[in-house]
């Protein structure tokens, strides 16, 4: 195919062979672990900062403001300045907090996000690990984050934090179901849980087009549930500023707060990346039927740009939700999940199964 020129497999294999020439097999493994680890770490830090900046600019535009403008041209260095500030701030531990759990919680939250990134395919061949059950892996790992949130709320010895953590627990556990269900809908269409295969299956057309009605419904449900899972507005009950001041991270300061903050944005990326992989064809370019000239032009754009373009689009949608809607109440969040999303999802799976069985998809 035309986009083989952008294949990262040759790059990664050449690195592997290069290392193997002067290292024993165990050394190669360790060196590759280190390389992957460092690049994921760098990616999270840089992309997190970019996302924070984008969020502030996007929100400003929605609100007829300019957003950060002072630090650097167009405020480009604002988030870096903020990050430096957070690094230098004092780490405060409340007197009667459970010290061990209090310090552990932010690490759980951030580690879980790193784990989920491992299975995200950025481009062809640029994926840390391609599990057979990649989709299941991502959805299960990303739901572990709630443990960190619960621990943070419990150990802070603050009633606001506790209420926030309990809300977050109820919310994430419920919405995990919807995320899972909408993933299952798409897995039925793809016929595989391996992320690379799911993307390969979309080389002729993205699932949101080939799967038409059930895919669109699943996409909407996934967006709603994904927003809820990342604790973003209108589902930001766990930190509900006007009710609980800052919810579960009320007592955190400095870099520990930054971990929660960063994790929120990286989770946003993971949800958007999963939406991209499952609905929008991952790094596959946009093709229209038999328009070969058009398709060739599309192929010319590297897959990594396709991937990030689609991810940014989904992130923009989620930001749009956040800056438009009022927050839901805790019982309404559960009502939305159990009375609306779950039945719709179950019916949608049936519909998708029917369509796949009858071959009514494109």
């Amino acid at each position, binding site marked *: 195919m035309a986009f083989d020129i952008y294949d990262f497999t040759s790059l990664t294999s050449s690195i592997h062979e290069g290392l193997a020439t002067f290292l024993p097999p165990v050394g190669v493994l360790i060196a590759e672990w280190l390389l992957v680890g460092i690049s994921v770490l760098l990616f999270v830090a840089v992309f997190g900062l970019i996302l924070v900046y984008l969020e502030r600019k996007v*929100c400003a535009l*929605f*609100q*007829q*403001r300019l957003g950060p403008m002072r630090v650097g041209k167009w405020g480009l260095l604002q988030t870096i300045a903020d990050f430096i500030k957070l690094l230098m701030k004092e780490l405060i531990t409340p007197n009667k907090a459970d010290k061990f759990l209090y310090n552990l919680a932010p690490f759980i939250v951030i580690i879980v996000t790193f784990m989920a990134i491992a299975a995200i395919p950025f481009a062809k061949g640029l994926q840390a690990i391609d599990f057979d059950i990649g989709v299941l892996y991502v959805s299960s790992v990303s739901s572990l984050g709630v443990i960190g949130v619960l621990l943070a709320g419990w150990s802070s010895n603050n*009633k*606001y934090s506790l*209420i926030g953590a309990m809300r977050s627990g109820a919310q994430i556990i419920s919405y995990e179901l919807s995320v899972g269900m909408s993933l299952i809908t798409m897995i039925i269409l793809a016929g595989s849980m391996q992320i690379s295969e799911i993307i390969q299956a979309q080389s002729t057309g993205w699932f949101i087009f080939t799967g038409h009605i059930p895919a669109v419904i699943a996409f909407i449900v996934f967006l709603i549930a994904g927003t809820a899972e990342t604790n973003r*507005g*209108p589902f*930001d*009950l766990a930190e*509900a*500023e*006007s*009710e*609980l*001041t800052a919810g579960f991270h009320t007592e955190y300061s400095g870099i520990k707060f930054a971990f929660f903050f960063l994790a929120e944005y990286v989770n946003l990326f993971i949800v958007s990346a999963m939406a991209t992989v499952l609905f929008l064809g991952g790094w596959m370019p946009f093709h229209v039927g038999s328009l070969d000239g058009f398709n060739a032009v599309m192929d010319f754009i590297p897959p990594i740009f396709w991937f990030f373009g689609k991810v940014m689009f989904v992130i923009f949608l989620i930001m749009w939700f956040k*800056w*438009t*809607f*009022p*927050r*839901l*109440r*805790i*019982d*309404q969040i559960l009502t939305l999940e159990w009375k609306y999303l779950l039945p719709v999802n179950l019916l949608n799976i049936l519909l998708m199964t029917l369509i796949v069985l009858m071959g009514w998809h494109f």
Partner: protein
Amino acid sequence: MTTTTLDFDTIKTQEYLVNMGPQHPSTHGVLRLVLKLEGEIVHNVDPVVGYIHSGIEKMCESLTYPQIPHLTDRMDYLSAHMNNEAVALCVENALQIEVPDRVKVIRTIMDELQRLASHQLWWCVMGMDMGALTTFFYGLRDRELILDIFEETCGARLTLNYSTPGGVMFDIHPNFQKRVKDFVKYFRAKLPEYNQLLSGNVIFRERTIGIGYLSKEDAIAWGVTGPSGRASGFACDVRKHHPYSAYDRVSFNEILRTEGDTYARYQARVDEMAESLDIIEQLIDNIPQGDHQVKMKGVIKLPEGEYYQRVETARGELGVFIVSDGKKNPYRVKFRSPGFSNLAALNHMSKGAKIADLVAIMSTLDLVIPDIDR
């Protein structure tokens, strides 16, 4: 072998206390609420006020009558002009001075502009309390235009000190009529946007309809006035029932609703904004010629006696009670501030609500803390 059965009667939930405020994003200043909660359910709300008690009533006892209005600016700073006007009217009535029609009309227009500005700020903060942060900027954007009109007319944006006993501080600016007309036209077009963004939103409606119910009888008994009282069906619009300034010569509707819930209070205020625009439109082309100030004596002394003046501020009924002993300073001044009585009903309204509901209820009561603390 004995089996231990779990006895559910022995497992009890426990009420716990949470201090909401004095530094809290949704208490709009420094109000402190001591909440008795069971889980998320509010059992009791005990408002603790006084964090910015500034002793305005005491200070008034050592000021002369023209000096008092500038202190009332600092009570309910969002209804500054209505507060000024209340004092001015009270002194004028005591001295039996009839102010020129021009003053009356100017005061009425300024009142309604002030009411619009206050309701706009309330609307945007309401949205923010509910978690829709964008409303905050849209409301402030429109309020800024009113503040510009204020600045051009009297030089101040917030603490106006515009109405003085015997008239208004400045005559209107030559641009005043044009600017107000432009604003009315602009804001009429923007008002549907408010409804589109918040009033119609399914999440917002779900969160407000049926929450914080206050019956008409309770509203009267607790003295909940203003849009909050009228949403319960309590016809308490002072402008309608005890007209002052030029309110007897304009036609407007008293917005009355019967639901008495948070959404009704919200909708009452939004409807009032449209009503205010109508009042302004009726008056803006008919400002009579004349003086903007009656000649007053150098030292104003009120005859011995008690004087009471009621005006309708953006939050409800403001009463000014002046007791004079014939000197140039009042003997005692009491402000019956609307927020004070409205806050008293908060506990009654929010029993059994959730924390998120409490924030919504508090937001629709439109509390301004200096108004309560004075």
